[in-house]
């Protein structure tokens, strides 16, 4: 068993990214789609941190990008959930199939 390094972390984050994409393709419920997006953003964070640690340890750029991605993900989740709850109030459903018209 070799010492885990950059490639292992990149493998994990690639797998996580495509798990998120798979969920985004197959799910038709807005909340589960939001959860898939969270998985994708997390894999990107993992990538940023791994590159920062293994390739450019003299700077902290990757860490800051991860922090900003987390902040933006939090804002996005809050706004998305507000929209979802609004949609549920007006449509009684949060399937994307049932939200066809762009007005409420």
């Amino acid at each position, binding site marked *: 068993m070799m010492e885990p390094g*950059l*490639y*292992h972390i*990149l493998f*994990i984050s*690639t*797998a*996580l990214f*495509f*798990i*998120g*994409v*798979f*969920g985004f*393709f*197959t*799910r*038709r*419920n807005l*909340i*589960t789609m*939001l*959860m898939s997006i*969270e*998985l994708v953003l*997390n894999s990107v*964070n*993992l990538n940023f*941190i791994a590159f*920062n640690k*293994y*390739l*450019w*340890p*003299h*700077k*902290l*750029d990757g*860490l*800051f990008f991860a*922090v*900003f991605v*987390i*902040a*933006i*993900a*939090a*804002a*996005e*989740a*809050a*706004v998305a*959930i*507000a929209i*979802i*709850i*609004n949609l549920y*109030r*007006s449509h009684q459903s*949060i399937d994307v199939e049932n939200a066809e018209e762009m007005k409420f």
Partner: protein
Amino acid sequence: MLAALTLVSGVLAVTSRQIFRSAIFLLFSLVGIAGLFFWMQYDFIAAVQIVVYVGGITVLIIFSIFLTQQAGELLPKQKISRQVFAALAVFCGFALTLLQLCRHTFKATTDQPLLPTVSNIGDRMLSTEENGFALPFEVVSILLLAALIGCIVIALRSKPVTV
């Protein structure tokens, strides 16, 4: 071990048919990622991950599940063709990315590492010189303010519709 926890619970999160269970699996996956950050000795970012994702976003998602879903109701089964095509596309993308990853070799710098301690992070975050992140910091704070106001506006507008 941590990687296995993260990946397995990630897979379960996107395939479980009970929405509440899938939220709980998402929580485990996020905890696994925080563990990976700890393992890479990025303590600050791991703490931020736990506080924001595990403590904030997952709780928000679970609340919205409670608000919008009848408890214990299974999600409708997906069309098998859609699942097959999604799996195919995802597998192709995964294979392509791994191929690129195996062919590419990364060159690491040999400079003196700057340890990701909290004081270093704070210095960098608010310095206005080169390699400083004061401007993105301000931009993100404006964005968070905008998101707050946007949430309030969205929540207010629905009042006349429901009443």
